[in-house]
């Protein structure tokens, strides 16, 4: 069991070293998310609509779009020079590749989100500090669900001819339930509703996360098979 975790950690570490060396992904994700928020601010008139009503939607759209860049890159990087083949040749369970990629995607996306949140607060003039705890919990659940399904589909789409196009087409319809859930929860939190009043949404997102991690464990062997 210890070996299994070490193998996962090795894959996560490898992704981190690559990122530290190239510094391509995090900055690109951050700037892209910022641009998405800006474009939304220009396309909606904030003096008419309530910022706390449209804000959560804009925030999550920015997270998802920027996250898709990260997902697209995560397996594409491995396709270059046949690195994925190398990973698959390692005498380890294939699920370690999935978990390693899931964790590194999750950490990259979370770092980006932590940088975006203060900017979101400033641009939309929304006070988030007093709801920070529950908000981070909602962001955790949403990001985990996004990465759980996204990592699976990204491992699949990286082998297609039109990979950057196919990933969003496959991923976004499946993410709609979780998007509705997290946007609703974020909006309610910013209105001052405690998280305990939204347990059905928490349950929905949490079970989404668990089921899709489970399905990925069961099906990843069939995707990473050459």
């Amino acid at each position, binding site marked *: 069991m210890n070996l299994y975790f070490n193998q996962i950690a090795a894959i996560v570490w490898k992704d981190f070293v690559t990122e530290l060396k190239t510094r391509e992904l995090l900055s690109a994700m951050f700037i892209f998310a910022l641009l998405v928020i800006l474009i939304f601010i220009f396309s909606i008139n904030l003096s008419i609509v309530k910022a706390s009503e449209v804000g959560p939607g804009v925030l999550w759209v920015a997270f998802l779009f920027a996250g898709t860049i990260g997902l697209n890159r995560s397996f594409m990087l491995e396709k270059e020079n046949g690195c994925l083949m190398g990973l698959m040749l390692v005498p380890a369970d294939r699920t370690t590749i999935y978990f390693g990629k899931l964790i590194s995607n999750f950490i990259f996306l979370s770092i980006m989100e932590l940088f975006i949140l203060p900017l979101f607060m400033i641009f939309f003039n929304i006070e988030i500090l007093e709801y920070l705890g529950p908000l981070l919990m909602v962001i955790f659940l949403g990001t985990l669900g996004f990465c759980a*399904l996204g990592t699976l589909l990204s491992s*699949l789409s990286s082998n297609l001819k039109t990979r950057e196009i196919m990933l969003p087409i496959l991923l976004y319809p499946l993410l709609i339930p979780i998007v509705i859930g997290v946007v609703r929860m974020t909006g309610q939190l910013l209105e001052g509703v405690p998280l305990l009043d939204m347990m059905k949404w928490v349950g929905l997102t949490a079970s989404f996360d668990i089921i899709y991690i489970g399905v990925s464990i069961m*099906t990843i062997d069939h995707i990473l098979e050459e």
Partner: protein
Amino acid sequence: MMDQEINEDSGGESSILVWLTGITFFAAMAAIFLFVPTEKTEGPIQRIMYFHIPSAWLSFFAFFIVFVSSILFLWKKEREWDIYANASAEIGVIFCSLVLITGPIWAKPIWGTWWVWDARLTSTLILWLIYVAYLMLRAQTDAGSMRARYAAVLGIVGFLNIPFIHFSVLWWRTFHPQPKVISSEGFGKGMDPSMLATLGVSLGAFTLLYFLLMGQRIRQEKLKDEIDRLKREKLFSS
């Protein structure tokens, strides 16, 4: 010689199915346009329900078959299940599109708008998008084991999404007419018997149509495989 006999056999079976489907459809049309009385408040437009509900039933059933075939494919790795999943997804998408077309035609005079962001409408639209993506994935990859495996994974992931879609959009908002056939009052209590009978015939006709289309599509796909095999054989022998 053997092959020919098998083909003739399946031809015989499918011709029975063709006749059965044809007759049931004829009966359904007669019931819908001649037998069943016009609904009091909604008028003749209500008759579209006899196409709308069976199409919805057929598409959900087809997506369920995709799910089952996908699991069986990953388990057994037989080309047969891949063909079933592919054929069923195609039929499901067609009838899901019909649901999305007939719905607004009914909604415009009754609700006054083509589309509302109601739970069932939204979930049908999402479902349509998922299975269109499934067919696109199939179109993007070359025939072979990879396509079948990827499609099977998506077939499973997509179907497991249905409960999440259902609850998320239900808690989001809903105005769709409540189910009349199986309601809390008991089976078929919310509807006139003649309407229920017509709907039943129509459901039967659509279900038969599903099997007819499936049979045709499976046969077509198998013939395609056979042609590919013969092509390769001839290519390497010459």
